[in-house]
């Protein structure tokens, strides 16, 4: 039995004086691809930030590969929400991707040719290599997302935490991300994503965690994503276009 | 009986309140701007006046802005003396305002225009460095004091006579001192153009790094002009002023040293302000003596090979 890549015990978080999350506990099997679901404002992004130590915990414990995050940093890659970054910043795609290597570098070091090679590989996997010298302000939303993913890739981590990677991306990007997921799965990496589209959950992920200010459910997608649990999570505010009870596997689309 | 004595006390108390203060020997309240003017007023008025001087040691009158305390003193004054000729550059509107309801006098007002130094349309206000010219300011102060306090006319006159005699002797002394310098040595370089009247009265060429008002800033060009002059005329010393940053001339000296000429700071002169209160240099006479002795000593040292 391999060490759980991510284990959360009794986590509670607060935003100013309001409690956002309470009593969240779950344990993820190694090598799974996990979707964190819930309505807007349920605390999904906050949960990811809490796990990454970017927002303070009121209570609870987070174990990454059996240890504290601070000891396991090199094994974890974080992909922030796209709209939290300044895309007018004067920087090129390649430089953004190379940022992922700085976790491995000392403070005075610069990325080497080895790092550059890794970056090119990562861009290739996401079909972004032709854009390596493009200014990020010239990219579309989907392309920006792929740059962020490439950056996470070069970290050569074992656990990937992504905040809404599929939000507002075009078809090509969605395809590229799914392709990346498959590569990572083959390498037995673990992926945890905040996801918003109930229609695609069963197709892209094999484990779901449903959050609404607390844990509603955590388990394999087939057994956990039931209409009752969905209703409980979304409290009657079921997102439009959801076809309940549909299960899709493989690469089938619509 | 008791009621009578109480009433008598009460009446005298009331009467005392209503007696006009001028029939008491209350000193005349005078405010002077610069220390030099304050010294004149003090010399003439002695204990018959209550003097308040706004600008103490090291204060630059060109840049001085009146504080709240100053305004209070000015309001309470009966007579106000200022230099005039725009020396107190940032207080002009205050004088205009005060003049509407008070006796406000420029001590330079008695000096005929032809005696003043003009730079184009601007007049040099540093009149106190020509002792003979400053005597005219003393006369003006005397006249105003008598006008506002005629009771002590004789007292003021006696003090003025004595003081003017001192100044006449001082004027001659300065002339004698400067004459001990060879003509080629008589170049006075200071921080700003405060010594124009001094130069004219006692036979010296004077140049300042800043113009006649320290409000004007100086740049590299002004430094260069002075440096060229110093090197060309082999001037041995320049003089800092107590009311102007020493640093400016230190930069000049450092720059000249680089070109090989041995230039020193000859000493500190009291230009727009006198020395520390309660010292010799804190009086007008002491200030002039200090300046002249410092200048002569420093400029004599560099004996040019004639």
């Amino acid at each position: 039995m391999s060490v759980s890549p991510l284990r959360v015990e009794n986590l509670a978080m607060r935003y100013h004086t309001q409690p956002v999350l309470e009593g969240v506990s779950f344990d993820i099997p190694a090598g799974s691809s996990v979707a964190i679901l819930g309505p807007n404002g349920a605390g999904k992004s906050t949960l990811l930030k809490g796990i990454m130590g970017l927002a303070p915990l009121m209570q609870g414990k987070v174990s990454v590969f059996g240890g504290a995050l601070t000891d396991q940093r090199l094994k974890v890659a974080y992909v922030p929400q796209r709209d939290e970054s300044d895309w007018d910043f004067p920087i090129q795609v390649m430089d953004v991707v190379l940022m992922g290597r700085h976790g491995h570098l000392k403070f005075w070091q610069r990325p080497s040719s080895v790092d550059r090679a890794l970056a090119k590989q990562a861009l290739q996997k996401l079909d972004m290599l032709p854009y390596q010298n493009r200014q990020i302000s010239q990219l579309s939303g989907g392309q920006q997302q792929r740059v962020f993913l490439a950056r996470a890739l070069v970290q050569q981590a074992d656990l990937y935490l992504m905040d809404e990677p599929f939000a507002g991306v075009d078809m090509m990007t969605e395809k590229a991300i799914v392709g990346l997921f498959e590569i990572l799965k083959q390498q037995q990496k673990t992926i945890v994503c905040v996801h918003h589209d109930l229609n695609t959950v069963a197709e892209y992920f094999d484990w779901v965690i449903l959050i609404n200010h607390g844990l509603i459910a955590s388990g394999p997608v087939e057994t956990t994503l039931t209409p009752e649990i969905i209703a409980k999570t979304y409290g009657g505010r079921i997102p439009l276009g959801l076809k309940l009870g549909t299960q899709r596997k493989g690469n089938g689309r619509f | 009986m008791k009621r009578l004595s109480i009433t008598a006390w009460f009446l005298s108390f009331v009467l005392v309140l209503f007696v006009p203060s001028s029939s008491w020997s209350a000193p005349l309240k005078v405010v002077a701007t610069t220390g030099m003017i304050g010294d004149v007023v003090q010399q003439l008025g002695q204990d018959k006046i209550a003097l308040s001087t706004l600008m103490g040691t090291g204060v630059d009158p060109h840049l001085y802005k009146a504080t709240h305390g100053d305004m209070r003193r000015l309001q309470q004054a009966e007579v106000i003396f200022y230099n005039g000729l725009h020396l107190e550059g940032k207080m002009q509107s205050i004088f205009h305002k005060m003049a509407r309801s008070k006796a406000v006098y420029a001590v330079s007002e008695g000096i005929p225009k032809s005696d003043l130094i003009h730079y184009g349309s601007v007049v040099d206000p540093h009149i106190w460095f020509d002792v003979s010219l400053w005597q005219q300011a003393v006369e003006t102060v005397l006249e105003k004091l008598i006008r506002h306090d005629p009771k002590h006319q004789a007292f003021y006159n006696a003090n003025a006579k004595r003081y003017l005699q001192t100044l006449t002797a001082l004027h001659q002394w300065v002339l004698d001192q400067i004459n001990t310098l060879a003509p080629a040595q008589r170049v006075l370089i200071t921080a700003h153009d405060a010594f124009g009247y001094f130069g004219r009265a006692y036979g010296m060429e004077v140049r300042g790094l800043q113009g006649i008002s320290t409000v004007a800033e100086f740049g590299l060009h002004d430094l260069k002009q002075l440096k060229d002059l110093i090197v060309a005329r082999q001037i041995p010393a320049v003089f800092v002023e107590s009311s102007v940053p020493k640093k400016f001339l230190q930069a000049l000296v450092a720059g000249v040293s680089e070109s090989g000429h041995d230039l020193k700071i000859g000493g500190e002169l009291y230009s727009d302000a006198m020395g520390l209160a309660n010292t010799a240099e804190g009086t007008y006479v002491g200030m002039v003596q200090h300046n002249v002795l410092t200048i002569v000593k420093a400029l004599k040292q560099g004996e040019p090979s004639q």
Partner: protein
Amino acid sequence: MADFEWVSPSAWMLTKAFWRFEDANALWVLIGSVLLGMSASVVGSFAVLKRNALIGDALAHSALPGVMMAFILFETQSPLVVLFGAMSSSLLGLFLMDWLPKNTKIKPDAALAITLSFFFALGLMALSYIQGLNVEGKSGLDKILFGQAAAMLPEDLMVLSAVAMGVLLLITLLFQKWRLITFNRQYARSIGIWVKAYDVLLALLMVLVVVIGLQIVGVVLMAAVLLVPVSAARFWHPQLAVILWVAAIIGGLSGLISANISYIAPATPTGPWMVLVLAGFFIFSFIFAPYQGWLVRRIRQASQRSPLHE
């Protein structure tokens, strides 16, 4: 007695003399202004990118009471005492601007404005108080408001050079880290970068640059030297590293040109001219710069439209 004739050589001859470096004062001011221009532009660039452009202005204004207090305590205006005093109150202002938004409902921009005005007023009060003291050597403290570059001494230049070169060196060394943090702060933290330390270091460098710049451009104009170079440089190139180089060049050139002008014209202090030259560079960049200049964009638009007309 003959008056000394102020024969003024022509501006051209003076410029030639300037470039022969014969005039020691001119050389000191030149080096000081250029180094200040270069280091201030680079440090200020990061402030602008962080959307915190006016922090330099606040730091400069905050330095005033410290300089006054240092004089009241030590009764001297020696360069190291002034530096120490300026740094202390600048850092205090920095702390306040950081503390207020975190512990009260006051937003960062209001906190900056409050700190700036409060410290500046405190400094002016102290200046007025010093005027009334019966103490020697107090004149010239107000020169910190607008600078007096021509009064630079070799020891001032040594301190300035040491600080400026230290700043430039550190920024070169840690450039990629600061770029990362400025672009994506949360991500930087996630990969284990000690963001807080980098923040403090950058703030410290900014305080140092502001403090050495006070003698040349003064409190009131310091913000311009920090902000205008990078604002102009952004029109020239899309990449940050190049932008910083261009900003440094613009900053350095403005120091150089203003020193030259001060040498040619009488009663012309370097500080205000440095800011005027920077404004000139900005306008020039806005119109003519190859990457985002107005003229270039018009030409590009025109050439894109013409195929449609055919």
